[in-house]
């Protein structure tokens, strides 16, 4: 399984990689150290052996030399004892020299430092009579002085031989007889005093006091300087040093071998490691590329167990489905499958379990609930019990397919449902396509038409020539744009009219491959045209039947384009063609329009121009006129006007308006009555209270049980109530003041007309008649119209009420108005009722006095106040014919102006 890697792991890996190298290095170093240690120990051992051997050699040499000293001493003693002659000396010396190879000469030197005897006899170095050289005498005398053997310096004798001399003194008693000298050849000492195996192992050298090599046993073989040992040679004691140096042994090469092998093996290991690393790096690179491929793939990649559970998923899941790839492992694949596709998916998974690779398309649910079409390709690996799945998001393709399918279906449906017949012919005139509408139109099956050549089966035999001509024109590309109108023979022999429109048929490469004809059955349109015409006639009949006058005029020129019968009958039958302004009365003025109709453009339409009532100044009739700006059939902007005669309706409206006005006045009167009632009630309260307090006091005083303070309090309360009553009265006065009248010039005849019109309602109820006798040309009076109207109304009603006891035919009330000179007008209301008695008359104007059951007793009082306010007088008189006359005067406008001037 490939694994994810990141930089941290890479770093670690790199570190891991250095570890083997370091380990190998440490191992090699350790091994080298070990070898070095072993060798060092070896050398040490060797050195010890050398020391031992050298000490042994030195000892051997010393023993030899002591033995020689012994021999020489014996000879000296013999000589001193004179027991030795020359021959004997010779024999003994030669014999000894022969046995001891290191000795080259034995000489007896006389005390006069001259050689007396010398052996061997053939020696040339020491000749009888030779004096001692200077450096020899020092040892000679030392031996004499010490009385025992003394060694001289080693030196190179004239025969070029390095020699060492030992001097043994010869004494006879106190007499010094010279010395026996033994001469060692240093060279021979080295060669002969040590055994031969020593030569095998070491190079033995004798070093002088100043360190130069005096003699060596061998010089040819390589020596190992590191293994050497020096020891001072004693007895000579004059600086001779014996030194042994081991020869370089044959085991040198094997000693290097371990080191070489260690180094060699280490190198091999490192090389192998490097090879391994390179290999692993290559592997890692491959894995990384695979991971990158896995992670960067735009397709969904995943590994799923055969049990259908996600093992691994790539990040594309997050991009396409929105589910994090880290969440998916452990979830079943079916979790994300659209519920409808689950059985199908299960089927596919079963096939996978059988080891077959599958490929299918299903919908999968994203986290946000949307569904994606995914094209899955899955390969099972049975031995791993895993499947490797690749899914490609084909939602877009699916949508496109769906759209394409829908488009195709739609086109097909359109083609089938279109009612225009389509027919295509190739350039030779052969039919290559017909749609079903065309088949329906001509009644032939599609198979019968396809591939047929002209003359086509639907050509009517009677029109063949025309058809040929049309076809020729078509194929030449000269078919008229408006198409051909052709008669078509249906299969069942019927004929129908059709219109063919031709257009070139161009294929996708842009080449013309034929001609496409669309055929429309125009039988029905012909019938419709006829129907339309009759509908138009009906419409005209309706319009003409209207009572309202209808016209249509060009908005710009004002020319009448259409007028109905009513319009023509009002404004003349030659109206069409003339201008509205010229014929129509009444009509709105230009200023009545919200915009000038002449400036209207089609964009402003439709628009209301006028809606109002106009009076014909000639006939006096009222018309409701509505004008609309609209678009005429030819696209022009026109004014369309409808004028309805509303004279009757208007009169009715006028009557109802007057009635409403009267009602308003009635309610005003009622309000006044209510106010009076309320005031009466309010006055009742303090008055009753005052009476009660007073009577209570009276009762107590009479009963004799009156206490002053009680009475006082009651009387105070009574006076307080009296004040309260006073306040109420004041309020009444203020109310009256508030309803200050507004006076102006008033035609008294109009006032009377209004009042009488209103009172007539009552009069009719009471079966009374009101006669108005108003003098013509009365001057206008200066008065408040409403107030005077109320006074008249009140008086008229009183009069009518007064006559209620009379027989109906006598119930006539006269309202008379006449001028009293230029400055006053008198109005009189004359009834024929029961009249007013003398006593009644005195109380007539008392407030709240009434003779009526429903009355308040305020009417006449108020009337008088009103008239007096107008600078007039209200007078009551007996009617000489029976009944009463109430009359009042009002100043004329002129009079009041003068009065005003005077006042000013």
């Amino acid at each position, binding site marked *: 399984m490939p694994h994810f890697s990141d930089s941290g792991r890479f770093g670690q890996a790199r570190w891991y990689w250095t570890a083997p190298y370091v380990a190998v290095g440490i191992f090699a170093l350790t091994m080298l150290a070990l070898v070095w240690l072993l060798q060092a120990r070896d050398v040490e051992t060797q050195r010890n052996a050398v020391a031992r051997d050298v000490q042994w050699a030195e000892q051997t040499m010393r023993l030899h030399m002591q033995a020689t000293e012994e021999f020489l001493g014996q000879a000296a003693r013999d000589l001193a004892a004179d027991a030795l002659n020359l021959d004997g000396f010779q024999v003994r010396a030669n014999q000894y020299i022969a046995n001891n190879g290191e000795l080259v000469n034995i000489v007896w030197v006389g005390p006069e430092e001259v050689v007396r005897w010398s052996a061997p006899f053939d020696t040339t170095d020491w000749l009888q009579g030779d004096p001692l050289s200077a450096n020899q005498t020092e040892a000679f005398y030392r031996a004499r002085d010490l009385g025992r053997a003394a060694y001289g310096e080693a030196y190179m004798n004239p025969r070029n031989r390095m020699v060492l001399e030992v001097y043994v003194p010869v004494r006879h008693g106190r007499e010094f007889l010279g010395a026996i000298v033994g001469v060692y050849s240093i060279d021979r000492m080295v060669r002969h005093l040590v055994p031969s195996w020593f030569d095998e192992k070491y190079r033995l050298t004798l070093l002088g006091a100043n360190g130069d090599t005096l003699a060596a046993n061998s010089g040819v073989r390589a020596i190992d300087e590191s293994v050497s040992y020096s020891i001072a040679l004693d007895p000579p004691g004059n600086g001779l040093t014996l030194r042994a140096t081991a020869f370089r042994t044959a085991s040198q090469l094997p000693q290097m071998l371990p080191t070489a092998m260690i180094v060699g093996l280490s190198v091999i290991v490192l090389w192998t490691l490097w090879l391994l690393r390179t290999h692993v790096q290559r592997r890692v690179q491959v894995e990384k590329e695979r991971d990158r491929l896995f992670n960067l793939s735009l397709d969904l990649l995943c590994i799923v167990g055969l049990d259908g559970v996600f093992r691994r998923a790539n990040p594309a899941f997050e991009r396409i489905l929105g589910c994090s790839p880290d969440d998916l492992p452990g979830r079943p694949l079916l979790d994300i499958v659209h519920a409808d596709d689950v059985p199908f998916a299960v089927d596919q998974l079963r096939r996978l379990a059988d080891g077959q690779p599958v490929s299918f398309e299903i919908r999968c649910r994203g986290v946000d609930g949307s569904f994606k079409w995914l094209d899955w390709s899955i390969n099972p690996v049975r031995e791993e019990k895993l499947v490797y799945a690749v899914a490609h998001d084909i939602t877009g393709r699916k949508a496109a397919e769906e759209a394409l399918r829908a488009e195709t279906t739609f086109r097909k449906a359109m083609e089938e449902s279109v009612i225009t017949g389509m027919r295509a012919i190739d350039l030779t005139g052969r039919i290559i396509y017909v749609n079903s509408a065309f088949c329906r139109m001509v009644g032939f099956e599609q198979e019968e038409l396809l591939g047929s050549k002209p003359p086509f089966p639907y050509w009517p035999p009677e029109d063949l020539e025309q058809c040929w001509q049309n076809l020729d024109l078509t194929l030449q590309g000269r078919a008229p744009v408006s198409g051909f109108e052709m008669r078509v023979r249906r299969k069942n022999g019927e004929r129908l009219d059709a219109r063919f429109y031709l257009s070139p048929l161009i294929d996708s490469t842009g080449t013309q491959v034929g001609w496409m004809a669309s055929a429309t059955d125009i039988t029905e349109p012909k019938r419709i045209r006829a129907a339309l015409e009759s509908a138009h006639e009906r419409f005209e009949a309706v319009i003409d039947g209207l009572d309202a006058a209808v016209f249509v005029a060009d908005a710009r020129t004002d020319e009448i384009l259409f007028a109905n019968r009513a319009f023509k009958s009002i404004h003349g039958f030659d109206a069409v063609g003339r201008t509205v302004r010229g014929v129509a009365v009444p009509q709105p003025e230009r200023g009545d329009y919200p915009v000038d109709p002449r400036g209207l453009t089609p964009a402003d339409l439709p628009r209301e121009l006028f809606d109002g009532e106009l009076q014909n100044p000639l006939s006096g009739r009222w018309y409701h006129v509505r004008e609309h700006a609209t678009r005429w059939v030819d696209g022009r902007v026109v004014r369309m006007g409808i004028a309805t005669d509303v004279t009757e309706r208007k009169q009715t409206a006028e009557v109802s308006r007057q009635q409403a006005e009267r009602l308003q006045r009635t309610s005003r009167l009622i309000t006044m009555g209510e106010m009076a*009632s309320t005031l*009466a*009630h309010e006055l*009742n*309260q*303090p*008055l*009753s*209270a*005052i*009476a*009660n*307090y007073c*009577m*209570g*006091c009276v*009762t*107590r005083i*009479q*009963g004799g049980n009156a206490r002053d303070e009680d009475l006082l309090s*009651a009387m105070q*309360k*009574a006076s*307080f*109530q009296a004040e*309260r009553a006073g306040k109420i009265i004041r309020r009444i006065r203020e109310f009256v003041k508030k309803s200050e009248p507004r006076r102006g010039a008033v035609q008294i005849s109009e006032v009377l007309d209004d009042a009488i019109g209103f009172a007539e309602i009552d009069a009719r109820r009471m079966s009374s008649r009101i006669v108005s006798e108003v003098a013509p040309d009365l001057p206008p009076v200066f008065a408040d119209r409403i107030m005077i109207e109320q006074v008249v109304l009140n008086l008229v009603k009183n009069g009518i009420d007064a006559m209620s006891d009379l027989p109906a035919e006598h119930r006539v009330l006269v309202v008379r108005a006449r001028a009293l000179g230029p400055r006053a007008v008198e109005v009189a209301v004359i009834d024929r009722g029961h009249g007013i008695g003398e006593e009644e008359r005195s109380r007539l104007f008392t407030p709240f006095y009434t003779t009526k059951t429903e009355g308040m007793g305020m009417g006449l009082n108020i009337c008088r106040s009103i008239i007096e306010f107008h600078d007039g007088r209200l007078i009551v008189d007996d009617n000489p014919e029976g009944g009463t006359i109430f009359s009042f005067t009002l100043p004329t406008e002129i009079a009041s102006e003068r009065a005003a001037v005077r006042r000013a």
Partner: protein
Amino acid sequence: MSEQQSAAPDQYIHIVDDDEALRDSLVWLLESSGHRVRSYESAEAFLADFNLAMTGCLVLDVRMPGMSGLELFEELRRRHCSLPVIFITGHGDVPMAVSAVKKGAVDFIEKPFSERDMLDLIAECLAAEQASRGRRQLEAETVRRLTQLTQREREVLDLIIAGKLNKQIADVLGISIKTVEVHRARVMEKMEANSLAELVQNVLAADVGQGR
């Protein structure tokens, strides 16, 4: 007017009027005449104080803010209060007052009224109330006594009231005349009647009063 001192000391005149001056002056007037007076500023205030044991009479203003006098009157009748009621009306309230009288109020008096009329009317009311109260007490007493009778005594009493003679009673009930006489004597005793006429009158009155 000391002779007008009211007969029963436990009778109160209840005045309900929203106008403080009128109420206070009326209290003054009536107290001057020796009446006991209680005044209320509204119908609601009166109802809050009201109980069936109240005696005397009511003087109501017809027009009041809130519950009107007429409405209060109707409410009291609904609560089986039988106190006599006098309405005070202002100008124009007369039709209203008339309808109240038709519904059982004693009378109405129009403002501004004379104190004489008012006092007479009140005296009349108090007398009537006292009488009716005595009657009601007697009725209640009779009813209570009736409950003390045994079944047989009650049967005998019913037959006596039906005007039957002892003999007829004995026949109807199937008992001896002697026994009837014993029952009869016990009925008279229990009903505390002095005469047969009183017994019959009381029982019948009680029956009517209790709505039998």
